[in-house]
């Protein structure tokens, strides 16, 4: 459990944040320049807060009130820098191995071979960092941090330089770190899907202040009508239980009180509880009986709220049978055409193909 409560001033910028991160992934989310990297560096001990206290579990990492401070190398906190920061004089293999020496034997839980395999850097082992491409550097940096099997992992936009396919290969691995190895992670990303998939808590920073803390469903849900440019960031998170895994079709069925959700890929095991992130833009609303469409998931509920603004969009919030809320964006045109109003019974159609692997916990790369 990481607990942060610090202030720091730097020129015009001031940071004043307090939050706690649990056992899983805590997402740090917010616009460019809001202070994400600053927080990460404070937790790693690379900078000192003007005032405040950071604790990791029982350990006080820094407390300006008592003057207590643990040096960075004793914190056992791994850090993936936004800009790699590989050792330029060492080859990739030595970069990866650097921290291993300082990891107590019993704590060495992350296997080198698996990391190299997942990151796809096996062919780079003899190379110097200066000969690597941007994405290759970043992958090596991720590997280097993982291999110390840290007690907390800080990741600063680790996947930003990578293509989608590579991202989707690495994400399940990060989940394994979180679940199998129980390494808590503080994860900075601009990608809603990544955050929604990985994080159990999301901290939204703005101008050096915490704007919102909560589950991805709470923080990333559109509370008001977001500026239209932000509509892809709005998600709902539904929780259900896996009832059937169908290897023949390569899909899994998740039972939710409001209906059955079809998810692409084979979830880990039947009976497990899963969280599914659904973008508000991916939900289609249907009136009347379920139409004959290629969408296999239809959740029943009623319209709880319709928010409109000058923009083209309306944000429709549905209350599902379970009491869960599901958000859907539609054009105002559509809302008017359908005559949608609060209290109407509607069905939410959710395409399985639009459910991003990055948005479902415990879903590995779906075999092609």
């Amino acid at each position, binding site marked *: 459990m990481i607990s942060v409560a610090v202030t720091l001033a730097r020129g015009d910028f001031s940071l004043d944040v307090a939050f706690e991160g649990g056992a899983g992934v805590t997402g740090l989310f917010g616009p460019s320049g809001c202070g994400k990297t600053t927080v990460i560096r404070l937790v*790693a*001990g*690379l900078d000192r807060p003007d005032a405040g206290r950071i604790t990791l579990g029982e350990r006080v990492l820094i407390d300006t009130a008592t003057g207590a401070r643990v*040096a*960075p*190398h*004793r*914190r*056992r*906190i*791994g*850090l993936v*820098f936004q800009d790699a*920061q*590989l*050792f*330029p*004089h*060492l*080859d990739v*293999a*030595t970069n990866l191995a*650097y*921290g291993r*020496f*300082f*990891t107590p034997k019993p704590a060495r839980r992350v296997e080198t071979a698996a990391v190299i395999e997942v990151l796809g850097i096996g062919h780079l082992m*003899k190379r110097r960092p200066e000969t690597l491409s941007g994405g290759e550097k970043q992958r090596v940096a991720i590997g*280097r*941090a993982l291999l*110390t099997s840290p007690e907390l992992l800080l990741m600063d936009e680790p996947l930003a330089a990578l293509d989608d396919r590579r991202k989707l290969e690495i994400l399940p691995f990060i989940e394994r770190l979180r679940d199998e190895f129980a390494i808590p992670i503080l994860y900075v990303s601009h990608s809603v899907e990544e955050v929604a998939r990985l994080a159990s808590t999301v901290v939204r920073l703005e101008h050096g202040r915490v704007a919102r803390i909560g589950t991805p469903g709470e923080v990333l849900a559109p509370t008001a009508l977001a500026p239209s440019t932000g509509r892809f960031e709005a998600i709902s998170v539904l929780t259900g239980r896996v009832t059937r895994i169908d290897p023949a079709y390569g899909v899994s069925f998740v039972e939710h009180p409001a209906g059955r959700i079809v998810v692409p890929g084979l979830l880990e095991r039947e009976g497990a509880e899963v969280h599914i992130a659904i973008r508000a833009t991916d939900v289609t609303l249907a009136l009347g009986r379920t139409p004959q469409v290629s969408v296999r998931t239809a959740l029943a509920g009623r319209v709880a709220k319709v928010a409109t603004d000058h923009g083209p969009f309306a944000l429709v919030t549905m209350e599902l049978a379970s009491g869960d809320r599901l958000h859907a964006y539609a054009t105002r045109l559509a809302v008017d055409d359908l005559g949608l109003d609060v209290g109407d019974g509607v069905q939410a159609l959710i395409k399985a193909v639009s459910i991003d692997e990055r948005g479902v916990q415990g879903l590995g790369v779906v075999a092609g």
Partner: protein
Amino acid sequence: MFTSEEWTAILLSLKVGSIATAASLPVAIAVAWVLARRDFRGKSLVDGVVHLPLVLPPVVTGYALLLLFGRRGVFGAFLADHLGLVFSFRWTGAALAAGVMGFPLMVRAIRLSLEAIDVRVEQAAATLGAPPLWVFATVTLPLASRGIVAGAVLAFAKALGEFGATITFVSNIPGQTQTIPSAIYALTQTPGGEAGALKLSIVAAGIALAALIVSEVSVRRARRGAAA
């Protein structure tokens, strides 16, 4: 080609130069690190003291060494009595003089390289669990290797040419303290000694050139090679 006295001087110069360089390197690295990375009262003064051997005429430095490290000197007596380390009129004294004279050059070169290091790479090492000394040995030093090599070469070259402080401190005793430059000096005092002086100058230049080439190659190889 060379008289036996010349051979002696050449070998002695090599010995004095190498040992002066090797022995002062760790101290120079430590001082350079402190000057590059720490801020403290009196830092300028330390910096000034480091530069002294450059600023003072070598004769003065040599005389100061004689006063401090001579057999009757403050440190000289102590070191001789307690560590059995005698500098006066020994090759060790020539090495001390050469080391002192090359010291400011060494410190500067190393300091420049240390200042050019991006501290975030060192911070990365710390987040991987490496304690400060280990970071220093495995990250800082290798990244400063250009400056360290350059400093060593400068100091070694200086040792080959150092004369004023050496002859003042430990005299010009063949086989003991007569290095190439002292031998050259003696030759310039001799009618017709020019040819001999030229010959020895060429030897000194050749040794320095060899040291330079070795250093360039080693830096280049280190940069190309695999690991440190």
